[in-house]
């Protein structure tokens, strides 16, 4: 990495005379080309720091550069959750310690059997279409999710949820079939935003997709597809969450939520002052952006990290020792830390990320890089011959494993580079890893979703609790299919552990159970971790008060304000 000029102290005022006089353009272009080809570090723009005594302003427009453009504001995808949070309020919010705090629900209790949750709603809250927030409306929302309105909400509560009833205008009861003590935390995710019942019932699918009506700090003004969503401040906002930094409507008037898919362009736009904040700073730029005076926020999302799940029902990985050999063949830490520039955290645990409550370090440390051990395991498993290209064989069949991955959306560029490193390192042990990039269409079309089609599945799944284990490891049975079980691993022992944990009310006891489930997964080498999924933000120093909500790391602009 080339060196960077030292930071100069700045007083925040324009400095006449310091700017070099503009040379004739041709000359400048030549000079720039020379600079470019000399490989000087990319510091297209350094942030101009506001004065120390800069005053907070109200009003203004935040131009925010986001990565992906979802189809709708509300839905089951994390990109939608980020947007929903701006417009819709949840029943609860998550504080920095992972505890649920009041949002639309000002308090809640669980019945002794853990099957009934009673929520007491805030008074005087109105949706932006003027209809009041009532317990009946919330109950309607929950049923709406469970009937397909939000597939992710459905996956979370499916198997637990029974019904929702409004006891009065402000008292809501949720009835469960099995105890789910972490329900309050779960409801803090963006998938559980509450919409106006009137709007859901009377407006078209298109309108509810593009501009859902909630009670949030902002409203959707319009959506320029391919370019931006314009959010306007809700001046009558009353229902900020308990962990909000200020009481009252948002400071800024407007957010231009712009879609800038290319990471390099996003960084450049922030440096050029075209955006005030951007999402997902590439690892390679992370240090430089911070050094140039931009505020950086980093959130390790909870839930399943970027990991590799092995196919346990077909192919070479049905043999547990082959799975272990694969794990031992990789120097995952070195790979991730090099390619991730020390920004992306290595994650050894394939079940949940380090920020997830109940995370097990033991599970993470199960497999170190140990090539001789990998080879010994393979030879013991019968893969004792080596062909002319250096790959192991058994009965004349090469040890080839297929690793399809969704390029672009689920595995980003860094992730793809790490997978290529995996391929290269596994080769040393004699694995031929067939990396198959699948475009989103093929991926979402169900390509490589069946046991006969893949040996390794790569991917992540964000959540707020280790309850994600239930989603990922519940058995896939005829009567209760679970296609999210990427290892195709049907094991009642593991499922029992998870179910037990899910319904354990005591946090420590629950975490212990979740930890045992993670270790079970690690011990059987069902899944190995690669790196933790990050949600990063870089913010111009002119913009203060931006924070990341704790459920998924999305930006919160309710408290954001410019300074001058």
């Amino acid at each position, binding site marked *: 990495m080339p060196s960077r000029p030292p930071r100069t102290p700045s007083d925040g005022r324009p400095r006449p005379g310091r700017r070099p006089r503009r040379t004739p353009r041709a000359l400048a272009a030549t000079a720039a080309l020379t600079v470019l080809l000399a490989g000087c570090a990319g510091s297209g*723009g350094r942030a101009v720091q506001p004065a120390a005594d800069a005053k907070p302003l109200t009003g203004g427009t935040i131009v925010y550069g986001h990565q992906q453009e979802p189809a709708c504001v509300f839905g089951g*995808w994390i990109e939608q959750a980020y947007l929903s949070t701006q417009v819709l309020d949840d029943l609860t919010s998550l504080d920095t310690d992972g505890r649920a705090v009041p949002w639309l629900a000002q308090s809640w209790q669980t019945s002794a059997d853990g099957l009934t949750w009673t929520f007491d709603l805030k008074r005087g809250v109105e949706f932006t279409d003027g209809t009041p927030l009532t317990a009946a409306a919330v109950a309607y929302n929950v049923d709406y999710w469970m009937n397909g309105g939000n597939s992710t909400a459905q996956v979370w509560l499916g198997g637990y949820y029974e019904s929702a009833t409004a006891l009065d205008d402000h008292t809501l009861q949720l009835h469960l079939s099995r105890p789910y003590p972490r329900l309050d935390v779960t409801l803090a995710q963006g998938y559980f935003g509450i919409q106006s019942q009137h709007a859901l019932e009377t407006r078209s699918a298109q309108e509810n997709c593009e501009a859902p009506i909630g009670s949030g700090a902002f409203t959707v003004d319009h959506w320029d597809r391919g370019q931006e969503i314009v959010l306007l401040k809700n001046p009558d906002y009353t229902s900020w969450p308990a962990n909000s930094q200020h009481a009252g409507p948002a400071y800024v008037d407007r957010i231009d939520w712009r879609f800038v898919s290319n990471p390099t362009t996003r960084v450049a736009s922030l440096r050029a002052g075209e955006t005030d904040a951007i999402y997902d700073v590439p690892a390679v730029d992370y240090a430089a952006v911070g050094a140039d005076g931009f505020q950086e926020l980093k959130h390790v999302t909870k839930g399943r990290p970027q990991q590799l799940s092995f196919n346990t029902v077909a192919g070479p990985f049905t043999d547990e020792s082959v799975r272990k050999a694969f794990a031992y063949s990789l120097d995952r830490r070195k790979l991730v830390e090099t390619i991730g520039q020390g920004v992306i955290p290595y994650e050894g645990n394939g079940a949940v990320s380090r920020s997830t409550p109940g995370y097990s370090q033991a599970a993470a440390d199960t497999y170190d890089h140990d090539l001789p051990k990998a080879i010994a395991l393979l030879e013991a498993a019968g893969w004792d011959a080596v062909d002319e290209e250096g790959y192991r064989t058994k009965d004349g069949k090469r040890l080839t494993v297929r690793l399809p991955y969704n390029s672009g959306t689920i595995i980003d560029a860094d992730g793809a580079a790490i997978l290529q490193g995996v391929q290269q390192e596994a080769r040393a042990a004699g694995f031929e890893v067939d990396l198959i990039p699948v475009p989103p269409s093929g991926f979402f079309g169900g390509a490589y979703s069946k046991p006969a089609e893949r040996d390794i599945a790569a991917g992540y799944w964000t959540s707020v609790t280790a309850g994600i284990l239930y989603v990922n490891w519940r058995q896939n049975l005829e009567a209760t299919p679970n296609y999210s079980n990427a290892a195709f691993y049907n094991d009642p022992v593991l499922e029992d552990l998870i179910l037990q944990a899910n319904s354990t009310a005591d946090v420590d006891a629950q975490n212990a159970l979740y930890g045992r489930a993670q270790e079970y997964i690690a011990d059987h080498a069902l899944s190995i971790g690669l790196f933790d999924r990050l949600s990063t933000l870089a913010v111009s120093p002119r913009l203060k008060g931006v924070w990341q909500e704790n459920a998924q790391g999305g930006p919160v602009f309710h408290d954001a304000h410019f300074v001058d």
Partner: protein
Amino acid sequence: MTLTSSTDPALDAGLTQAPPSRSAGRTARRVLARVAGAVVVLWGAATVAFLAQVALPGDRATIIFNTRAGQPIERTAEELAAVNAQYGLQHPVLVQYLDYLRGLLHGDLGRSYQQYRPVTQILGEQVGSTIVLTLTAIALAWVVMVVWVTLTAGRGPRTSGLGAALDTVTAALPHYWLGILLLLLFAQRLGWFPVISDGGPVGLVLPALTLAVPLAGFMGQATRTEFERALEQPFVVSARMRGQGDLGVRLRHVLRHSALPAVTLSGWALGATISGVVVVESVFTRRGIGSVLVTAVNSQDLPIVTGVVVLVAALYVVANLVVDLVHHLLDPRLKAS
């Protein structure tokens, strides 16, 4: 009032134009043939796009569902049935096709799977930006090409050689590479232009240049050949013999002749430029049908993809009509034949 026909044979011999009524009939026939041809192209394009999408791997309802949810998993039959019913995917392909054609006739391109909106509305929002970019690029390419060719063509081996070499080099520049270079240099390093190309005219400069430079090189190759050919024509000699200077000859006589192949190329270039637009919109984070298309192909949003295909085919038809018109303006000889 009586009609008198000319009885002067000498005059008659000079006037070879057909009587107006017959000429009008002929024009009408030609226009009709033109329209019929255009309809065939549009229908063919729509059909090909439809068939390609039907043949895409994977169950469409699953794709619609998974893309909405962001999870690549199998879906249950009940989940899929709802989506199928919503978009009529449970019908046989032929019925879907006929429905699709019926919709086309009413200017209805269907409804997006992912955005729940009419495709015409989606494309209507995007096409303006793309057309502005494309036309600016083609215009810019013309200006650059004309100036460059006029200055360098037929000026002795060294100058013409340099001119031709630059044509060749620029014509070979891939859009993505040129775009990245321009972006890196003029937006990121020098900051003269925005990194994100929004609607404004300043943001248009780099994307348009990216498209224009290779196009100018490509058209320049054809124009230069014609230009140098025309420079050797006798009418150039006679213009010079009349006292016309070199620049006058180039601008008043030669350019018009040499522009003809480039005009033809421009019609074709619209297609090539739209290919380039897909890339350029990606490089410069610009909205437009290119980025809509890539998104739609990735999410298998069939109605949008077919919509783009039909739209592009329509643009192609229009562009070729315009090219014909310009051709006739530049070369009135065509009218006679």
